[in-house]
């Protein structure tokens, strides 16, 4: 019985939802994963919002949605830096050590993101049709200028060069559309992140950081974009407001980054070493 109890206790941990710009208690009652009470662990003038949780939870859609729900509830009262899903510590002490380690970064991000929200704009275009059109145009121009060429090396090089030209033209066309759309939305945003052609038909996956007072303007802008259908045959998907998931920037280097900067013998540069020791 005692062993069973011990084993159960050892499986409990601290599940983290977000860093917030307050060291006060959370006034509203929020329940997190497994119905556990969500509370703030203060560190200096900021805090990390957590709940007690089993280390191993069934990872299901409802847990992911619960994580997001807690972060969004916090966003109503605080500036938040959402943690990535399923970041757990064994004890509060460990969470506080992490806060100590990253405190400067967290404060900078909280200051930069205060009173701002994230919006997402995805634009789908008929990329496959566009590419086929470009290919057809090349085929036609090649047919009219066809020269018999028996050299397989030459024809291979020619084929590769044509593929390159088709890709380039395809990207140039995508860039034109993206520039138009992005110029339209950027007017209301203070920061943005643009992902181009993540797949053939996903022309644009963009994230805009918008000040709270411009939130309604941004929503209207999106409605207008959809109504007037900027660039014709495109489909727009809009989401937000979100916590600023895409605009958190931690400058403290990870081990992975430090190793990638190390020389071939695994040595980290003297400058980096001093930086790590806080001497630079």
């Amino acid at each position: 019985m005692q062993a069973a109890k011990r084993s159960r206790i050892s499986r409990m941990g601290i599940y983290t939802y977000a860093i917030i710009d307050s060291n006060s208690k959370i006034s509203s009652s929020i329940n997190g994963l497994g119905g556990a009470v969500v509370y703030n662990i203060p560190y200096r003038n900021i805090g990390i919002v957590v709940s007690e949780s089993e280390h191993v939870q069934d990872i299901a859609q409802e847990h992911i949605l619960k994580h997001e729900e807690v972060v969004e509830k916090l966003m109503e009262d605080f500036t938040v830096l959402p943690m990535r899903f399923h970041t757990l510590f064994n004890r509060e002490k460990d969470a506080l050590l992490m806060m100590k380690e990253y405190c400067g970064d967290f404060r900078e991000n909280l200051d930069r993101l205060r009173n701002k929200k994230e919006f997402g704009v995805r634009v789908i275009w008929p990329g496959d049709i566009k590419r086929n059109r470009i290919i057809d145009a090349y085929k036609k121009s090649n047919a009219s200028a066809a020269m018999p060429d028996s050299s397989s090396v030459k024809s291979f090089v020619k084929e590769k060069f044509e593929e390159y030209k088709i890709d380039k033209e395809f990207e140039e066309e995508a860039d034109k559309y993206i520039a138009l759309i992005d110029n339209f939305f950027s007017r209301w945003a203070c920061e943005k992140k643009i992902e181009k052609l993540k797949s053939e038909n996903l022309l644009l996956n963009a994230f805009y950081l918008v000040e709270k007072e411009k939130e309604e303007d941004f929503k209207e802008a999106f409605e207008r974009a959809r109504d007037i259908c900027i660039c014709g045959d495109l489909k727009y998907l809009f989401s937000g407001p979100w916590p600023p998931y895409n605009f958190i920037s931690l400058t403290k280097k990870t081990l992975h980054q430090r190793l990638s900067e190390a020389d071939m013998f695994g040595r980290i540069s003297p400058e980096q070493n001093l930086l790590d020791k806080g001497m630079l």
Partner: protein
Amino acid sequence: MDNVITKSKDVTLLEILDRVLDKGVVISGDIVISLADVDLIYVGLKVLISSVETMERLRGAPFAGGQEEPN
């Protein structure tokens, strides 16, 4: 939950997954080394319900494959 998320947004599950699983504050393994006392457990990457793209990107991440097993 529904009230918070779906009320005013044109939200798809994919939008949520892409953010919650792949973005936000990502504390990676260096903290285990740089602070000997810290016992950080991060198991999220083992258990994803995610888009293929997200999965592929995470496979290349430092914790891919889940180096830390839950106790």
